[in-house]
Every structure is written in structure tokens, then in C-alpha cells.
């Protein structure tokens, strides 16, 4: 069996190894992704984003349990930040997911951002495709919530869940309208804490302003109150996700199409950017035009990035 067959048949080791190659940008991984692509499109992708510590991993853990009750298999991608100083990372989301470690129906992978902005890693979309091809029914993606930029997940997921906690009213106010527009479902977790009602009211007001614009008037983003550590509110959250899915799927077929297009667009763009860069770089090397030499030229003010890029494009792509 080659690696493609292994992955499609659900082999954990093969899948795990390919994910590593994708993360490390090994060129041969692209050929494998290409072979896997026809096997994708079956999984339902749910993104979770929100500030650090609001309880995203705990929610993901609870939802995984909920989906397993329905006999759905679950893939989890959990992103944590890379240290900008050392390039290393401590990936700790698994701490909250221990009870799934022995379940063959759950595959969990921790990822580091590796300097990529926007809350996802550079290759999260490719990894979603691999878990999809591997046969996971539901894929849960937990992204680093940095406050402003976690918009990327909204382009990759079918349903995006924005997680907050009581007392974050000020913080929510400070968040640009843009981020409010990406949430299809809002969660106020840690509802055991004071101020939950107030936060819900504030959120409701903000949603009126922002979210409706993006979702169209026919999807009113629900606000779900949860206490993830005690599994409280999980049925409501599960139902909200189901409702959003049926909204996309059945009542408005053009909505489903929109989501598919959005995901296809982002993946095509990423693949093009990646491949174009790689191709040009390879040609430059072949022509003896060193990237490092150009860096030197910029540092020594003999040239500038814009001129050099024009020259490269004219020479290598002309």
C-alpha cells in the first residue's frame, strides 16, 4: 500500500507523518495532497477562536465527546503560538483532551503557528484536507485567538464559533467589527462566573451591528451560554452547530455553495502562492541568482525589494 492508500484507509501513523511533512513544507507532500484531494469534501469543519484561556480546548473536548455519541469520527487540529524568540513552542491543548487519547475514532494534532499570522498555521487548510481524506466526519480546528486577526479560520471552516467569557465586554467593544462578522455562533463560556448575562446583552448588540451584515438577514447568530468544564450548555452548542449546518445545506443551497467557494478560493490562492514562489526560487537558483545576494543588496542599499522583484519577475517569468 502506498501512503495515499494508507491515509484513505485511515492509517494513523501514515497520516501523522504526512501532516509533519506538510508542516515542514517538504515538496513531495504536495504530490500526496494532490492524490488525496479526490477523497476530500465529506467532512464538516468547525472552527473555534477566541482569546487565550477562554476555554476553547475544553469546549472542543466536550464537543468531541458529543459527536462520538452519534458515532461520528472526529479530527482535531489545535494551534498554539510559536515563541517569536526561540522558534520553539509548548503545545498544551491536549491537556484538556486526555479522555480521547485511546479512542481510535479521534485523531488529535497539535500545531505551532511558526510565525504565520492570522491564528492558523500556514498549512492548516492542507491538514484539514488530509483528515477529511482519512475519513474523519467532523473536524474541529482550535485557533490562536489574538484578538484582531483570527479571521482566517472563517475562510476554512463551515461553521465558525467565537468564544468569549463574562466580563470581556470591554474587550469585545475593542474588537473591530470585522471579527464580530466572522462568528456564526457565539459562545459565552465560564457562565459560572459573574456577568454572563451582561456579556450576552453586549454581544447581542454587537451582533446586531456586525454579524447580520455578513451572514445575511436569514441567519441570526445564536449566543450560547456554556460552562465547558461541567459540560453545561453543550447540548445547546451542539444544536446551534447543527442548525447552522442545516441552514447552509438545505434551506439555502446557494449558502452552501458560497461556503464551498470561499474555501476553494483560499486554497487555490495558497497553493498558487506557494507554488509560484517555489518555482521562481528554483529558477533563480538555476540561473545563479542568489536570494541571499539580493538580501545583501537591499541591506547595503544598492537596491530595494520592489526593484528586485520586478527584475526577478521579468527575468524568470518573462
Amino acid at each position, binding site marked *: 500500500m502506498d501512503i495515499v492508500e494508507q491515509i484513505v484507509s485511515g492509517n*494513523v501513523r501514515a497520516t501523522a507523518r*504526512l501532516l509533519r511533512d506538510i*508542516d515542514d513544507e517538504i515538496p*513531495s507532500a504536495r504530490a500526496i495532497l494532490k492524490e488525496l484531494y479526490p477523497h476530500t469534501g465529506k467532512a464538516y469543519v468547525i472552527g473555534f477562536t477566541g482569546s487565550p484561556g477562554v476555554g476553547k480546548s475544553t469546549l472542543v473536548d466536550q464537543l468531541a465527546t458529543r459527536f462520538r455519541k452519534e458515532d461520528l469520527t472526529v479530527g482535531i487540529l489545535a494551534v498554539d503560538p510559536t515563541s517569536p524568540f526561540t*522558534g*520553539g513552542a509548548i503545545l498544551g491543548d*491536549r491537556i484538556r483532551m486526555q479522555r480521547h487519547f485511546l479512542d481510535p475514532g479521534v485523531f488529535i*494534532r497539535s500545531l505551532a503557528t511558526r510565525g504565520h499570522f492570522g491564528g492558523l498555521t500556514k498549512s492548516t487548510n492542507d491538514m484539514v484536507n488530509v483528515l477529511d481524506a482519512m475519513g474523519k466526519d467532523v473536524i474541529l480546528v482550535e485557533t490562536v485567538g489574538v484578538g484582531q486577526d483570527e479571521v482566517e479560520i472563517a475562510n476554512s471552516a463551515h461553521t465558525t464559533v467565537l468564544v468569549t467569557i463574562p466580563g470581556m465586554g470591554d474587550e469585545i467593544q475593542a474588537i473591530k467589527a470585522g471579527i464580530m462578522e466572522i462568528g456564526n455562533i457565539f459562545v459565552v463560556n465560564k457562565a459560572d462566573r459573574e456577568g454572563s448575562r451582561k456579556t450576552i446583552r453586549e454581544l447581542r448588540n454587537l451582533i446586531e451591528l456586525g454579524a447580520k451584515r455578513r451572514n445575511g438577514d436569514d441567519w441570526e447568530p445564536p449566543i450560547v451560554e456554556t460552562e465547558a468544564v461541567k459540560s453545561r450548555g453543550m447540548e445547546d452548542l451542539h444544536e446551534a452547530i447543527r442548525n447552522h449546518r442545516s441552514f447552509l445545506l438545505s434551506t439555502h443551497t446557494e449558502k452552501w455553495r458560497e461556503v464551498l467557494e470561499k474555501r476553494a478560493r483560499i486554497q487555490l490562492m495558497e497553493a498558487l502562492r506557494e507554488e509560484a514562489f517555489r518555482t521562481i526560487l528554483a529558477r533563480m537558483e538555476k540561473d545563479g541568482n542568489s536570494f541571499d545576494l539580493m538580501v545583501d543588496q537591499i541591506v547595503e542599499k544598492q537596491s530595494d525589494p520592489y526593484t528586485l522583484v520586478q527584475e526577478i519577475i521579468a527575468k524568470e517569468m518573462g
Partner: protein
Amino acid sequence: MGKDRKLRILVAKPGLDGHDRGARVIARAFRDSGFEVIYTGCHQTPEQIVNTAIQEDVDLIGLSILSGAHTYSFPRIMELLKESNAEDIRVIGGGIFPLEDIPKLKGIGIREIFEPGAKLKDITDWVEQNISPRKAVAFEGK
């Protein structure tokens, strides 16, 4: 512009005691050396540790031990890795071990044992010198 692969390490704590300060300290030291550390918390069974190591595709498992849990968990972990065809994942241990156990542990394939006196730098240096990220999956295309 060939980039180096990142070393991925699972830091795990088998056994029943709920105290994981040592594991956290070593996890931070590994991060500060530029490695990606998967940290899973306390009370891990050998089965959980090996499943995690495989799903996360780590190069190394670092086991932190306090109270003699190694006599069961270390051999079991080595056994499970073998059963899963994952013997290329290396294992090291840190903590308090009876002196006579150390050769036994090395005998079953534990690469290195670090005792409480070991400096963090000795451990990270050892990893840098002895563990390298595994090779990419071979694929010829169709």
C-alpha cells in the same frame, strides 16, 4: 533556502502522583531550545503516551518520573512502540531512579536517563546532539 525540520518532542508524565513541576520545567527548556513540545499533563498511561506520540509524529518522548512508576511504564511504553512499528521514536527519562535500575532501562532501549542533578542545558544539549528529525515520507507520485 533548505529549511531544517523542527524537532518535535512529547513531554509526558506517567504515574499517579499529580505533581508535574519537573515536566513543565523541561518542557520550557525544550521550547527555549527551539523545539516543538507537546505537553499532555499528568497521569498518563503508557497507552495514552504512545498514541499521542504517534498522532503528533514526535521524534522523542521525554518521560518525567517521580515515584518509581518507571518499572512498569518504561518497559510497557517500549513494548507498545514496538507493536506500533514506531521504534524510531526515541525515549529518554528524567527523575529519581534506583541506581541498579538504570542499566536495565538502557537495556530495554531507553536512550538516556537524567537524574535530578542533571542541568537543563545538559539535557537540551544531549537532545540536540543525539536526536534528529526523521526523514520525509517517500512518494514517487503517479
